[in-house]
């Protein structure tokens, strides 16, 4: 039985709840979970000041209510499952190593930033810097999977090194900025400067996007490795076209101003 948290009312300022992880709740009694420290602004408070808590000693957490102002949920978690029945705040799943997070609503910035494992599925929209590196950090996401059913903000996958990000809706500028590896799938296209300064890695766009002039066209083909991703994405409800009869992927390499060995694969349906 999961530990159920019901938000009494949205906090007036962001609530920093980095203790709210499955690793913690798996070991704690009901009283200890209620007493978990959270920070409202600069003041330390108890978790039950903001949430009604049910259950104990479970590595599953279910959060109800509009947690848009609740930050750092699932930070560094290694196992279990968090389900957010509503929206979630910044830094959801930041640095997570394992387990799964599912959000029914929207999430804010820095979703899964610098995560190294596990999976996050957001049914709504995400803010900027999903899977990205924090400012001053060399590497963003290093493994794991982020799936966003809606759109996403700026700098998705910035400096990511490994792992998979799938965004089914539109993405704003600088997707894959300074990317070092991994794969980003943009099912709903992207705005400007996609892949800027990318060194390695793959950005797949299923819609035509505006390219930087520092990317060079290579060929149109259907790479075999995409079949592996297609199989995985199919289980997440995302279709990756692969059929030669339907079209092919235009391969662009860059960003040559770095110079980079990254690739942009842009699906082009057969006319």
């Amino acid at each position, binding site marked *: 039985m999961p530990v159920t948290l019901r938000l009494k009312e949205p906090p007036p300022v962001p609530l920093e709840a980095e203790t709210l992880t499955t690793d913690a709740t798996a070991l704690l009694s009901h009283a200890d979970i209620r007493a978990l420290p959270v920070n409202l602004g600069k003041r330390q408070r108890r978790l039950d000041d903001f949430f009604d808590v049910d259950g104990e000693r479970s590595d599953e957490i279910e959060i109800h209510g509009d947690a848009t102002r609740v930050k750092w949920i699932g930070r560094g978690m290694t196992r279990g499952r968090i389900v957010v029945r509503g929206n979630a705040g910044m830094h959801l799943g930041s640095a997570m190593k394992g387990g799964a997070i599912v959000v029914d609503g929207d999430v804010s910035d820095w979703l899964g930033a610098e995560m190294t494992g596990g999976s996050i599925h957001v049914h709504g929209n995400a803010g900027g810097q999903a899977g990205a590196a924090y400012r001053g950090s060399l590497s963003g996401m290093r*493994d794991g999977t982020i799936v966003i059913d809606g759109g996403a903000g700026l700098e998705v996958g910035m400096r990511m090194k*490994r792992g*998979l990000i799938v965004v089914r809706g539109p993405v704003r500028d600088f997707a894959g900025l300074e990317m070092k*590896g991994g*794969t980003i799938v943009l099912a709903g296209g992207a705005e400007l400067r996609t892949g800027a300064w990318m060194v*390695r890695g*793959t950005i797949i766009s299923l819609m035509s996007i505006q390219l930087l002039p520092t990317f060079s066209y290579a060929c149109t*083909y*259907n*790479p*075999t*490795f995409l*079949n*592996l*991703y*297609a*199989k*995985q994405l199919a289980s997440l409800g995302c279709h990756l076209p*692969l059929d030669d009869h339907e079209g092919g992927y235009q391969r662009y390499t860059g960003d040559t101003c770095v110079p980079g*060995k990254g*690739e942009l694969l842009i699906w082009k349906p057969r006319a």
Partner: protein
Amino acid sequence: MTRNGVTIVDTFAEAFDMRAARVVITAASPKWARTAAECMTGFATSVIGCKVEAGIETDVSPEDTPDGRPGVSVLLFGFDAKGLSDRLLDRIGQTVLTCATTACFDGLPDAPERAAAGGLLRHFGDRFQSSKFLDGRRYWRIPVMDGEFLVQETFGIQKAIGGGNFLILASDQASALTAAEAAVDAMRAVRGVVLPFPGGIVRAGSKVGARRYKKMIASTNDAYCPTLRGRSDAMSALPDGVNAVLEIVVDGLDRGAIERALAAGIHAACRAGVIEITAGNYGGKLGKHHFHLHARLA
């Protein structure tokens, strides 16, 4: 013991410890997957002469391959992990990498011992190669002239058994061949085994060493050569009426797979024209795996 009038000799097949790898080859069509698999398993009949024994295990449907394309599963057997690892590199590099549209995946993902065949083969990419890491496994993408060759970085190697066998002693060559073909068809339906010889059948059965040529590792199995019956220097083991012998050799991933294959093969081989079915062994002194024929048919 008799089956369909065929005498089953109360003896056993003697088999040996080996190491095995399973490679799943996929391609744009079943034809090209099988072309690569047939090339990969060519000249791989005996580990003594070919350094590896290999065969096609089964066709794999697109639903069951890693990349959703038609595939063929190949089993390769070697004396040790190092030797098998070298053969994997040679054979994937020369026969799968070069074959149009193919990709190559590990078929033993749970095997703890790993051969880095794909990780070495990537050097063919001359630093134009790239990799993808998905679900804890690394795949190398090597640029080739029809696009990219995708190969898994490591291949699992596990303990296995090689040299399970039985001999079909028949009244004539045609009867021996018909029975052997039936046995091969039945044994190829068993997963986890391959029959490494041409068409799954051996006509040149061998004995260890040679009587007259000291340096020979193996020489003709004179006891089962019909043309040598009656010679004073050849100890024929052939019953009266036997004029042709064919052998089936089977390598398998585990004892159970070989037992199932032997049972299926012997049952299928018991047909008109076959006089006796026996097995090759060295008195139990060389191989620790003994497959008693009567136990297989019990």
